[in-house]
């Protein structure tokens, strides 16, 4: 249909369009307000403002450094906790014979029908009655028990070669030993893929942190960013510097873990 050159031109134009927003963030982050809001649109800042970085962290109205720190803690603990809890459960459901295993699996599947976002009202009610509003537990713990992640692990372990584990069990390892000594070390690719996806969704989560983070002290970086939209005074260069910094860790994660990530997404997608 298209010649090879035509194909590259079309793909290149699409790629440019996809990159424009990233470019705008960087451009605005390193400009002065006057230049961002000036009458004449400029594609390049005339004078790069590195000082915007320090100004952002010194700004007293939004505790940006604190929120970055919160997001990092929440992101890491959320990821480690989810992997631990959900992979164990997925393995148990896939591999350990138990007469009610099927019923339990259906009980997990049913939770997939109820989207997590819809349950934010009841979850908030529960978490506030536990006294966890504006706390780290409140941000992290309720998100660890993902039916979807458990389901993905179960599907993955169903396809894991049984012979490896059987050899280990003959050698005298129980389920627990076989899991940690044989199954996990041989599944690092899958764990890495799920870890990446979990970390990204944790870092980018907004609704739950917004609901729970009622004190500024408990804001995550997304809530802090959002607060710029409702603030009366608008400092464009600070907003975009904050946006750039909030995206940077994930872009780095992307560039390093691209291959795993693509594999992981493709795997999860096929299983739908």
């Amino acid at each position, binding site marked *: 249909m298209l010649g090879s050159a035509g194909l590259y031109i079309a793909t290149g134009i699409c790629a440019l369009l*996809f990159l424009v927003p990233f470019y705008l963030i960087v451009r605005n982050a390193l400009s002065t307000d006057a230049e961002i809001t000036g009458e004449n649109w400029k594609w390049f800042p005339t004078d790069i403002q590195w000082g915007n970085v320090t100004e952002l962290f010194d700004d007293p109205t939004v505790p940006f450094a604190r929120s970055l720190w919160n997001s990092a803690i929440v992101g890491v603990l959320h990821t480690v906790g989810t992997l631990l809890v959900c992979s164990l*459960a997925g393995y148990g459901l896939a591999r350990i014979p138990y007469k009610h295993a099927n019923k339990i699996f259906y009980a997990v599947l049913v939770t997939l029908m109820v989207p997590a976002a819809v349950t934010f009202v009841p979850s908030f009610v529960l978490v506030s009655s536990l006294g966890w509003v504006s706390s780290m537990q409140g941000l992290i713990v309720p998100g660890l028990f993902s039916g979807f992640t458990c389901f993905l692990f179960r599907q993955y372990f169903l396809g894991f070669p049984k012979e490896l584990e059987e050899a280990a069990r003959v050698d005298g390892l129980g389920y627990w030993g076989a899991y940690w000594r044989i199954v996990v070390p041989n599944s690092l690719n899958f764990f890495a893929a799920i870890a990446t996806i979990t970390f990204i969704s944790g870092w980018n989560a907004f609704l739950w942190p917004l609901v729970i983070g009622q004190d500024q002290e408990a804001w995550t970086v997304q809530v802090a960013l959002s607060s710029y939209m409702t603030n009366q005074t608008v400092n464009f260069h600070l907003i975009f510097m904050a946006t750039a910094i909030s995206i940077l860790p994930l872009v780095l994660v992307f560039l390093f873990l691209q291959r795993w990530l693509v594999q992981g997404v493709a795997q999860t997608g096929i299983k739908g």
Partner: protein
Amino acid sequence: MSTTTTRDATRPAPAKVSKTKPRRGMGGSTFNFWLFTGPFLIGLVIFVYIPIGWSAWLSFFEARYTVTPDKFIGFDNYKLMLTNGDFTKSLVTFTVFAAIIVPVTWALSLGLALMVHRLRFMKAFFRSVFFLPTACSFVAASLIWKMSIFSGVRFGMMNTVLGWFGVENIAWLANPNPPWYWLVIVTVRLWLQAGFYMILFLAALQNIPPELYEAAAIDGAKPGWQTFRYITLPQLRATSTAVILLLLVAAYQAFDEFFNLLSKTTWGRPPLVELYYTALGDDQDYGAGSAGAVILTLLICMVTMLQGRFLGFGRGDGSK
């Protein structure tokens, strides 16, 4: 890491074993089953089942500013949500949104996948470029869209570019007539999620056996539209179905971009934004909020099951 977690997690083990049965060597599969799945299942009950049950219970009470109400009011909260208009209007907003975003994302991600799939050089590079927005959050993207690209004033990128062609400034988000805000809402989500679904299509495209195309060529099918229509598209059926289902569920959960782009406006509120203001706004009406959550959940389950029936989703579960 593995040694410390092993020690921690086995600590409660002896007590539990002695209570049930004497340990049977490596066997004890019932005990092991609970050892592996127990923590997850306890969490699932506490943080998923109990909130849902509590919510269903709260929805029958007058629960303003309180989560332990005592005034039973039957279906009044449901009546309130379904008759005051805002919630039902939000369902209409959502329907319009889904009707646009689902097919457009499907088409764009499939188109990108077809392009990237055919590339011979720099495949990984272009794939990364299209996938990269997935790293961006809705909040961050909304900021760029609202304050830089679709800003209503002169310095917005869109208005500047349109200005070159003599088009007047457009107030993209500031009024619902004409509803330009849809363009902003749809493009931001499109940019964020198209690359993700492109990856799913790319994986599916790689799984189409090349013999099919060879056979089609022998049968005289012209490359291009004909092979796409009769080979590629049917082979992508399973993935397409999954993608549409995922898109639909994701659309139902739309919150971030609507909240950030249109927070102060009264138009363009999807269900979750409406629920947010009902339950956590000035009224803190947990009863009505819970009723809305129950209605929405039932609706999503219904749509999911209907779609499953029409498109055959889930039937292929045994194949993998």
